[in-house]
């Protein structure tokens, strides 16, 4: 019933509804642009939402995250270039279909799978989040500190290729978040006597720098003069259109893949691309015609697309119930909650009930809208993007970032921070440190430090409070367990590689 209340809240706010529709369109277009991820687009558009009411602002960015994931399939299928990392697996079968003159069929299969996966994910979010929040609302500072530590360890060790580099990126994010005045004593920490640093670094310039400027630097390096468009042959006969007979046998694939995506979405740090590859691999293993996968079959499009979109809703569960963002998009949304003065965590379901269910309703409406946009205009959007030279798109994005970073506090200092963060993000990409771990750690650090200090104030046994409180101890054990397991696997994999090298 709460969700009906959410729909009522949303429909009573025409501005928010309008921004949901706009987001559905913008997300598909941005997702289809190779190189520009949904997270980068959201980071760039955050300053625009300063002028909106919280529901419109959050719904706008949340739906861009959803439609952006779907939009990635457009360029993966048409250009054999993934619009987002989540759509890499879609290329394997999507592009061969397009080359055989079945681009419309492949795009519509991606649309059906994405919409289905996203709806299943959102239903799990709506049913599960409030239930989990009712339990986590009982948490005190020790439990929260343990949750934050778990997030640092899990995200740091899971999100990148290297466990060590992931944990270093997390530590760097914590270090950057500590710059400024100590919130309790007011003492300056690592400010170097600069007045601008006393308030610390703000989220928006860092986000834009790490995600957008670094991407523009990579694109500038390759100096694209146009999309590397592949010849898309025109549809032949009715082979270019999706029929019910095509979809019906794939419902099992779509449902299972959606569930893989939903489960992976709940786990912090894994995200859409992992979900897409897991679903693709697992469904290929199960399929009787597994040897046909990769040659251009519809199941190879349905599995990764259902899974990567099913991540969207459940990835919000750790954020809304614990205040811990599991993905980059969730981390940015957490920043937007804070910018609008809405404290994040389990109390959200009581303190901002209308807003949260309005946001869930916006998500559902957004899914339907991007599905309609994709179904009817997906091929056209792809063709338009293939004709607009990237050499015009990326300078435009750069101009937007310069003014977007300034907009938040009307400060050129923030523009400089954005450029500095861009260099840092670029270096992290080059050296394979995960930028997402850096940003998530930056966002979580103030809460973690506050929880740690409050816990020790409450404790009669000093640090033992984190062991004597069973829930806190369990969260810490999970975090340490995942980090040790990932580290051990990396060491074993390294040894195996060395042995093979010596044998060859």
């Amino acid at each position, binding site marked *: 019933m709460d969700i009906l209340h959410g729909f009522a809240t949303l429909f009573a706010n025409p501005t928010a509804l309008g921004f949901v529709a706009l987001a559905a369109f913008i997300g598909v277009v941005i997702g289809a642009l190779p190189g520009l991820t949904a997270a980068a687009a959201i980071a760039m558009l955050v300053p625009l939402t300063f002028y909106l009411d919280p529901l419109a602002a959050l719904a706008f960015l949340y739906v861009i995250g959803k439609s952006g994931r779907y939009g990635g399939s457009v360029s993966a299928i048409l250009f054999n270039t993934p619009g987002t990392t989540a759509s890499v697996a879609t290329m394997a079968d999507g592009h061969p279909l397009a080359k055989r003159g079945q681009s419309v069929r492949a795009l519509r299969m991606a649309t059906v799978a994405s919409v289905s996966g996203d709806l299943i994910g959102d239903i799990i979010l709506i049913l599960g989040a409030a239930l989990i929040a009712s339990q986590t609302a009982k948490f005190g500072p020790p439990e929260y500190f343990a949750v934050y530590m778990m997030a640092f360890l899990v995200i740091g060790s899971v999100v990148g290729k290297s466990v*060590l*580099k992931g944990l270093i990126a997390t530590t760097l994010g914590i270090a950057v978040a500590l710059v400024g005045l100590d919130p309790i004593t007011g*003492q300056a920490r690592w400010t170097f006597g600069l007045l601008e640093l006393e308030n610390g670094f703000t989220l928006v310039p860092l986000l834009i720098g790490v995600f957008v400027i670094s991407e523009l630097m990579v694109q500038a390096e390759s100096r694209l003069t146009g999309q590397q468009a592949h010849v898309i042959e025109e549809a032949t006969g009715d082979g270019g259109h999706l029929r019910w007979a095509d979809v019906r046998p794939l419902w099992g694939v779509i449902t299972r893949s959606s569930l893989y995506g939903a489960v992976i979405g709940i786990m912090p740090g894994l995200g859409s691309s992992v979900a897409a590859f897991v679903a693709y691999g697992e469904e290929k293993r199960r399929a009787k015609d597994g040897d046909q996968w990769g040659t251009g079959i519809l199941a190879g499009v349905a599995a990764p697309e259902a899974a990567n979109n099913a991540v969207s809703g459940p990835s919000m569960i750790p954020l809304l119930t614990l205040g811990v963002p599991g993905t980059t998009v969730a981390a940015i949304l957490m920043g937007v909650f804070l910018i609008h003065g809405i404290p994040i965590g389990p109390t959200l379901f009581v303190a901002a009930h209308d807003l949260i269910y309005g946001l869930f309703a916006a998500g559902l409406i957004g899914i339907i809208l991007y599905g309609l946009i994709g179904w009817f205009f997906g091929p056209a959007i792809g063709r338009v993007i293939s004709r607009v030279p990237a*050499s015009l798109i990326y*300078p435009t994005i*750069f*101009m937007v970032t310069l*003014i977007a970073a300034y907009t938040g506090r009307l400060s050129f200092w923030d523009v400089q921070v954005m450029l500095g963060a861009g260099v840092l993000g670029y270096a992290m990409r080059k050296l394979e440190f995960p930028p997402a771990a850096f940003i998530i750690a930056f966002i979580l650090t103030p809460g973690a430090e506050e929880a740690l200090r409050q816990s020790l104030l409450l404790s009669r046994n000093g640090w033992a409070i984190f062991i004597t409180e069973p829930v806190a101890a369990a969260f810490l054990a999970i975090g340490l367990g995942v980090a040790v397991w990932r580290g051990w696997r990396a060491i074993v994999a390294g040894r195996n590689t060395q042995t093979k090298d010596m044998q060859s």
Partner: protein
Amino acid sequence: MISRADTWTGLFLAVLGFGLFWLTQGVRITEAGLIGPRFVPQVVSVLLVAGGLALIFSKAKNSDSNIGAASLRAVGLILIGIAHVYLTPRFGYLATSALVAAATLTLFGVRNWRVLLAATLALPLIMHVAFIESMGVFMPRGRWFDVLSLIA
């Protein structure tokens, strides 16, 4: 084979960690019996040193990524951004953003002068209308010169 880029990065992180630890000595411990404002920064500094040293001595084979391969175009983009920060308060947004647009378009490979001219004029105007006029973002007038002072 250990990546040279990782060795240098590890060294940088270790030195950074040492430097940050040293800087925390200036933070007074004001909360007797509890952890004060110095505690977390010190732990993080130590972790940075440890992470840096681990990276230096890590035996894991690295990918072929190399920061040394950073192109001048990538650096050029940042220099254009710095020029934007320096020039906007002096020459106003419109004139500066036209220069920034021209430089960025050239950097991204636009060589057709008609396209370059049209985009150089159009982009600042679009940004001005979208952000400054429509959203009411306040942008200071140029101290030395401003195109807007010629118009209004």
